[in-house]
């Protein structure tokens, strides 16, 4: 038992906690508010509190919890909505009152099916049973390693009931894991497999591999949240962990409502069933925001260990960094850049390093892909969180305010973004590499010429260059722009993406050929390109026919 000596918002100083360890959990005051020890001097500890500390006063007692901040992992996660400490919000009251916390897991029961027989050995991390009713994909109960001395038959069990004894240890459907420590695995895999987001500009120009890391910087109003929500809905992953870290409550309500309604095209179930939502909105306690990033990644690693491909979407890592800054400032740490603590860069690096495609302890292959939004103040991309994040991620999808103002969505700036794995990802397919190079080259050149045209007027450019300008426009409107509202266009399969790009490239090539044969460029610019521009809203079989309509029409000029 310790005693509170000082309270300054989420910073609480405690004395009399002899034998406490760093990052150990404590309960503060009469309501046992959760907090975590972040520094120790003698028997005095500094605690960061995860709830509003109003009313907490010097003299209040403090209890050791004896364990580090941990997350309760179990079959209740899929399809659920949780706060930053992974306590369920579904079923909690209308107002989140720290004095009446919700139970850690519900009284729900689960249908368990054993996958091994008694007396067999089950290596650590191998599946000994599965829970089918927990959403899609099946939830696997993993072995702690050892001989299976007892296992329950198929049936209905509560989450904390013992379903097996392996190597002398009791196994239940749930387990507790510290969140600040990565879950172990055997080895990282070198080979790369593309992660399909369904967004054309990303999948073709800025691809990432499974297990990759991406930062998405964008000022307000650039459509950051819409893009991330689109990816959460349609990307090809087995499990999606969506962390709303210090963002809007209405948006979280929207995500949850939409995921509950949409059907997963891959499984036929609801999209919500493969999703774990961690909602720590901007008015919820600030330090739980700091923890939510870690609980989210821990959940992802837990499903990775079952052999699944998991994607973590964190919106926004800037709010996480700000929570760290706020606490550092209260605890009197010397500030580095713009008041952020000096460990900002190493904390960011450590977070993104938890991504990866690995061989799990049980020998399966699983991955964690991390996509982190960055909200640069004033849209200034030279601020510390953006610049430090850029150092550690494999890809950057920068959102551009000018594109967003022109209602060009997704407003991913193809010039200002990068993907360090693009070449490796395309290495196996020369066609794909050539397509990407051609589209990127055209957009680049069109961008350069557009600046020139603004000065001298497009009419003064040579015919070939005017076709490049035209090509840039066709690619922007017919390929890069993607509607989040149209059901057919919201998600674009890789095959369809390639087909659309090829159709447009063929049209552009024909235009080039026509001007080379002396056809006046003005007459080409006047043709009706809408069949290929609107091909993205058409059925897949129609795309080639639409291309031919435009090609035939162009032929009439000869």
């Amino acid at each position, binding site marked *: 038992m310790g005693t509170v000596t000082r309270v*300054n918002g989420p910073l609480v100083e405690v004395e009399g906690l002899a034998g406490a360890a760093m990052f150990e959990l404590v309960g503060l005051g009469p309501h046992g508010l959760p907090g975590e020890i972040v520094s120790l001097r003698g028997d005095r500890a500094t605690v960061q509190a995860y709830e509003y500390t109003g009313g907490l006063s010097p003299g209040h007692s403090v209890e050791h919890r004896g364990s580090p901040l941990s997350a309760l992992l179990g079959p209740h996660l899929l399809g659920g909505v949780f706060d930053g400490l992974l306590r369920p919000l579904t079923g909690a009251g*209308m*107002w989140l*009152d720290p004095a009446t916390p919700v139970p850690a897991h519900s009284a729900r029961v689960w249908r368990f099916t054993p996958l091994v027989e008694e007396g067999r050995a089950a290596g650590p991390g191998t599946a000994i049973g599965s829970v089918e009713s927990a959403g899609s994909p099946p939830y696997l109960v993993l072995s702690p390693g050892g001989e299976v001395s007892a296992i329950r038959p198929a049936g209905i069990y509560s989450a904390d009931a013992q379903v097996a004894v392996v190597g002398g240890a009791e196994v239940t459907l749930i387990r507790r894991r510290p969140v600040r420590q990565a879950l172990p695995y055997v080895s990282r895999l070198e080979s790369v497999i593309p992660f399909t987001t369904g967004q054309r500009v990303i999948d073709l120009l800025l691809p990432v591999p499974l297990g990759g890391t991406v930062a998405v910087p964008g000022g307000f109003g650039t459509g950051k949240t819409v893009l991330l929500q689109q990816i959460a809905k349609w990307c090809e992953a087995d499990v999606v962990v969506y962390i709303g870290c210090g963002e*809007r409550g209405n948006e979280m309500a929207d995500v949850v409502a939409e995921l509950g309604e949409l059907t997963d095209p891959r499984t036929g179930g609801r999209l919500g069933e493969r999703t774990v939502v961690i909602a720590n909105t*901007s*008015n919820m306690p600030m330090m739980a925001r700091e923890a939510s990033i870690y609980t989210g990644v821990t959940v992802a690693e837990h499903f990775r260990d079952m052999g699944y491909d998991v994607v973590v979407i964190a919106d926004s890592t800037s709010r996480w960094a*700000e929570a760290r*800054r706020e606490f550092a400032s209260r605890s009197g740490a010397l500030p580095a850049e713009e*008041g952020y603590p000096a460990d900002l860069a190493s904390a960011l690096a450590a977070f993104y390093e938890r991504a990866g495609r690995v061989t799990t302890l049980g020998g399966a292959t699983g991955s964690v892909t991390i996509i982190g939004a960055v909200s640069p103040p004033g849209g200034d991309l030279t601020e510390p969180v953006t610049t430090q994040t850029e150092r550690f991620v494999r890809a950057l999808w920068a959102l551009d305010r000018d594109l967003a103002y022109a209602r060009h969505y997704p407003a991913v700036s193809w010039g200002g973004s990068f993907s360090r794995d693009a070449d490796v990802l395309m290495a196996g397919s020369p066609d794909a590499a050539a397509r990407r190079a051609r589209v990127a080259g055209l957009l680049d050149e069109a961008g350069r010429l557009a600046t020139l045209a603004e000065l001298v007027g497009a009419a003064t450019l040579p015919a070939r260059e005017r076709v490049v300008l035209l090509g840039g426009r066709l690619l922007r409107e017919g390929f890069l722009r993607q509607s989040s509202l149209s059901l057919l266009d919201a998600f674009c399969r890789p095959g369809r993406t390639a087909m659309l790009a090829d159709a447009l490239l063929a049209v552009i090539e024909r235009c080039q050929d026509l001007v080379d044969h002396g056809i006046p460029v003005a007459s080409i610019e006047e043709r009706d390109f809408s069949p290929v521009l609107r091909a993205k809203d058409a059925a897949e079989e129609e795309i080639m026919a639409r291309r031919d309509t435009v090609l035939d029409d162009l032929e009439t000029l000869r």
Partner: protein
Amino acid sequence: MTTWAPVEYTGVAELRGPLMVVRGTRGVGWDEYASIELESGEHRHGLVLEVDRDLAVVQVLEGTAGVRARGTRVTFTGSPLRIPVGAAWQGRVCNGRGRPLDSGPPVFGMTDAAVTGLPLNPTLREPPADPVLTGVSAIDALTTLVRGQKIALFSSGGLPHLELAAQVAAQAHTGGAPFSVVFAAMGLTHADAARVRDALEERSSAGELTLLLNLADDPVIERLLTPRLALTIAEHLAFTMGRHVLAVLADMTSYCEALREVSSARGEIPARRAYPGYLYSDLASIYERCGRVRGLPGSITVLPVLSMPAGDITHPVPDLTGYITEGQILLTRDVASYPHIDPLASLSRMMRAGVGGGRTRPEHMDLATQILAALARARQAGELAELVGERALSITDRRYLAMAEAFELRLLAQRGDESRSLEETFNRAWQVVSVLPRRELSMLDPETLDAHYREEP
């Protein structure tokens, strides 16, 4: 539990800016409310910012001018500040701490609530839907306010944002559903406050208005409480009494300056432009109190009004506000007529959920998109015309320029006391698009055009 008589502390150890350090306290909790009695018998109030063993740091809402270290007595109430809530607030005019200014009795209520509020469970939030109509054409037609939304009004010096905010507060309604306005004024001049009171006179006498006035010469620190008071009152009106509430918070820049003042007096490490690093979280704790709750009839729509210093939208206050709110209405000097709304830079992110058949008009969203697209094209044409002269433009481009002019004259321009019905707004909007040839209106479907489009000769 035994109730103790409140302990009076006399050990004021330090006075600095708005802060008072009290020594010898026992059992004082963080964020507790304090009342302070000066030697002269004057009463002031404060909030506990920090407790450290027997020291309590109190921020004095009325400021520390004239406070002596000796002879000042401080009592702590034992809990964070709570205020009475209920219907009694409607029709009242109070100061920034909720004390009556209208010669009426103090406000009492059956229940009370903590002014800091509690976070609303995100899983019980109902996404915003249905409009709050303001009677201002440019807002209703192009940046519709949606019930449960937070949308900011950005302005800069010399523009009539207060007039517009007062006009919206005076005219807004939700069809026949019960509706209330809570108007929190922070740092307003006497002249401005008088105008706001005049504009809202009718609403106030109808018992649909709560007005909290913190004036420019009122204690600066009191401003930190005013918006929280307003939203605590609003939450009760909305979620207990089932009313649709519009909470207008003007001017949030003055609020943020008060926050900066306290932060600097405490010697905190400053972030951008010396605003504290927690400005985002602090603003979010105010703006996020908007919303609707699943299964309950009421809603809170929050309209923060803020003046951008030097018209700079990247200044921390508008920038962080923009990150939190769901859209903005931007006033600009480039638009000559009142209400000076820049239609292209304004955006209501929730609009799609607030308009359409059964809510406003079936063609609302398409019509708004069409007008904005046309205005964007007209702006380009206008820039070109400045270079090469209007006569060198194509006939179509000239029609676009004419359309932009019609937009400003017929739809946007409006008197400060003029409330337009939705029908009138739509009639005007159709007149505006009818300046363009029908073939240019690609975002409206043919049946809608047949019904409403009347090409101007």
